[in-house]
């Protein structure tokens, strides 16, 4: 996952100040295979339970993670994910960053629209994930890759 880690650094400045929140206990995982997605979901669940997210919010977060991890593999050609515990002084959250070195997303507005897909899927991955989390940020660069950051805060 060296390449993916590098692109995370490249994208870091844009996405990852987490709006002033502290970032703790980063865990980085590779995303290359179906099994990696299963492992990621398990780790995300652990983190979500750890900060006391409700069962519904846990489920929303791991579902979003599953969609985004699949995109990283399918459209980004593989990459990695970073899991962070976030604290902004008032509340805790789980932050996830998905990074790949793929072709980038040419038309972001279109890609976020429900039902739009280039891969024969349902086209719910991006737009759907966005609805399932509290914060959603994309940095995509043609020919360089894509980084997507999401946060679920404990309510």
């Amino acid at each position, binding site marked *: 996952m060296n390449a993916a880690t590098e692109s995370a650094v490249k994208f870091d400045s844009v996405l990852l100040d987490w709006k002033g929140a502290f970032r703790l206990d980063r865990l980085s995982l590779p995303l290359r295979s*179906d099994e990696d997605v299963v492992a990621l979901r398990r780790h995300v669940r652990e983190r979500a339970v750890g900060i006391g997210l409700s069962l519904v919010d846990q489920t929303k977060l791991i579902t979003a993670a599953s969609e985004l991890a*699949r995109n990283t593999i399918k459209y980004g050609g593989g990459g990695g994910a970073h899991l962070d515990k976030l604290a902004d002084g008032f509340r805790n959250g789980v932050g996830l960053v998905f990074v790949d070195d793929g072709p980038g997303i040419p038309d972001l507005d279109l890609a976020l629209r429900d039902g739009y897909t280039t891969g024969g899927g349902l086209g*719910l991955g991006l737009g759907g*994930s966005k609805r399932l989390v509290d914060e959603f940020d994309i940095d995509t660069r043609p020919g360089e890759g894509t980084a997507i950051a999401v946060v679920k805060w404990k309510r």
Partner: protein
Amino acid sequence: MERIPILRMGDLLLVTIQVDMHDRLAMTLQDDLTERIVRDSAKGVLIDISALDLVDSFIGRMISNTAAMARVLDAQTVVVGMQPAVAITLVELGLTLHGVKTALNVEKGMALLGKNLN
């Protein structure tokens, strides 16, 4: 290869998903089920997802596709046991499982398929 077992009960096929579902496994299940419907002349398929802690768009599509294929092969599909948190997430994600019959538990699912467990 990893597989989800399919049990036969009369003219019904029963599937209980108890593992972390990944994409390849979902596709294998879809293929296995359609094959078994034909081979066993099954009239109904009951899929118990009470142990699944998430249904994302891929698993959702597998369920919809399986139900559609079963219908074409003259079998009905009922999905039972969806956890409330999963249902909430599914709808927010934008999945409606169009054309899929659901029931709260196995017993009610059986009734929907015209079978009485007693």
